[in-house]
């Protein structure tokens, strides 16, 4: 059974649409990664999943039932850790114990706080009495995580939890979050730029761009200005003078997206141009082996664009790809999508 089911959700801030999701289901006890550039809607989606905001249109089902902010069914089960943690003006102990106290659950509160502080790598005897001001950024983030873990949540939503912390804290945060899934079957949804976390631990990865989901991979957004070229196709001149071609959009659509699952990578001069395919030249910037798979995430920079493609490992080996290597990217202009 799915823990979350989202159908036709559209969310607006004022007149601006920030999220549009037709269909999304998240299974129980899974780890879902959210990836996308800043402003792509990751934080908004997490707020909706955390029932901190209600979608402007559409509904979110939690365990098959419609839920809303402050409803009892989610209040004690779903919790969100934001990127910049807010610690209340009280001691570490009181911050961690807050969630239990407001539930009136004071059983063995000291030992439970100590245990959860240890879980995030903070020695209780050194940290429990500290003031909120006497913590580093990484320690504060771990205290904030401890305040959520002590609740043994059904769902732990993490919004870039390791973005502004040191490597040691990031490792501890990852470890403690994963342990929550192992011990209590907590469902994790993580928005992060931490590729290692995403591809080593996530059961599924959702790519967000301009508030839309790309389940197949991270679409590469291309913005104007465009000019009309041959055959009524549009042309976008990239920073290095190369030209990207796209079909004419329907009215009101402003952003073209190059679907990485529909491009092909070859070495310069080796590729045969097929049909209507066009070629762009770029170079590899990053390679990352996905967890338990023979797939390699390959990021290719073409002028100002970064195209992230999932490639078979044997193909990467055959092309002898490595960061800095020049490659050709073939694409069919007719397959460019407009949003």
């Amino acid at each position, binding site marked *: 059974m799915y823990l979350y089911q989202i159908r036709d959700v559209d969310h607006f801030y004022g007149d601006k649409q920030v999220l549009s999701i037709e269909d999304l289901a998240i299974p129980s006890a899974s780890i879902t990664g959210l990836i996308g550039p800043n402003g792509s809607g990751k934080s908004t989606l997490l707020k909706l999943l955390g029932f901190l905001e209600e979608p402007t249109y559409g509904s979110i089902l939690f365990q098959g039932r419609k839920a809303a902010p*402050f409803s009892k069914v989610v*209040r004690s089960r779903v919790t*969100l850790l*934001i990127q910049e943690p*807010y610690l*209340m*003006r009280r001691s570490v102990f009181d911050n961690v114990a807050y*969630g239990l106290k407001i539930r009136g659950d004071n059983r063995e509160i000291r030992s439970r706080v100590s245990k959860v502080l240890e879980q995030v790598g903070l020695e209780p005897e050194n940290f429990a009495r500290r003031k909120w001001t006497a913590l580093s950024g990484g320690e504060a983030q771990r205290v904030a995580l401890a305040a959520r873990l002590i*609740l043994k949540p059904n769902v732990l939503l993490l919004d870039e939890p390791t973005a502004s912390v040191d490597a040691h804290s990031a490792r501890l945060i990852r470890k403690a979050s994963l342990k929550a899934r192992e011990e209590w079957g907590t469902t994790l949804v993580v928005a992060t730029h931490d590729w290692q976390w995403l591809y080593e631990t996530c059961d599924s990865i959702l790519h967000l761009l301009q508030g839309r989901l790309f389940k197949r991979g991270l679409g590469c957004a291309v913005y104007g200005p465009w000019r009309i070229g041959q055959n009524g196709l549009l042309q976008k001149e990239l920073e290095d003078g190369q030209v990207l071609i796209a079909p004419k959009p329907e009215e009101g659509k402003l952003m073209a997206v190059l679907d990485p699952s529909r491009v092909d990578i070859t070495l310069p001069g080796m590729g045969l141009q097929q049909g209507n395919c066009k070629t762009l030249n770029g170079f590899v910037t990053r390679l990352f082996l996905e967890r338990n798979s023979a797939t390699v995430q390959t990021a290719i920079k073409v002028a100002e664009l970064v195209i992230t493609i999932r490639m078979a490992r044997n193909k990467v080996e055959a092309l002898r790809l490595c960061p800095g290597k020049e490659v050709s990217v073939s694409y069919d202009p007719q397959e460019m999508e407009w949003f």
Partner: protein
Amino acid sequence: MDFIQEGFTQAVTLLINRDPATYSAINATLRASGMAMAASLVLGVPLGYLLGYFDFRLKKQLRIIVDTLLSLPTVFIGLVIYALLTRNGPFGDMGLIFSIPGIAIGQTILALPIVIALTATAVEAADSNLRITLMSLGSNRRQIAACTLWEVRLGILAAAVTATGRVLTEVGISLMVGGNIKWHTRTITTAIALETSKGEFGMGIALGLVLLLIALTVNISLAGLRRRS
């Protein structure tokens, strides 16, 4: 200038000798301002929270009205309260005219906009992540309100300090609603006004210094609270 030095000496003498008239005025001042502050905090803090926390239609207009009321002249409040509480007024039967509770009502009206405006400002200035954090930890609306007010307690303390200063030192309301009746409704400020009108500058300065001493004591206590939080 001798009367200033004389005032200092007289202030010390009045306090050390436990001058009954002076202590009566101190008592009236503390009772009236204590009641006014209690009422204005009980009413003003929740109203300030509502004004600062929620977005609603006409919020800006309401905020402008509250900010305007910060400049309410004390004599005007005194006049209105006098008109309401006087024997022939709509609330004359309550017998509050020329009484300490009557003064306290006027002083509450003086302090209330200060407490509301400064509490609202403190709540508005609270970190936007506070609400998300509290909701994420499972707080209901009442718990969010309580915790938000606790988080902005220094701002509320500042509101209390400012309002206390205004209430302790006002003279218009105490004079008009209290009537400056010796042993009964004579506060320190009305006593200063009276002594000055009689040409007893030294006595006026002595009472002024006593008032400053009270303000100092109140602020030291509040500073202690601030340090503890």
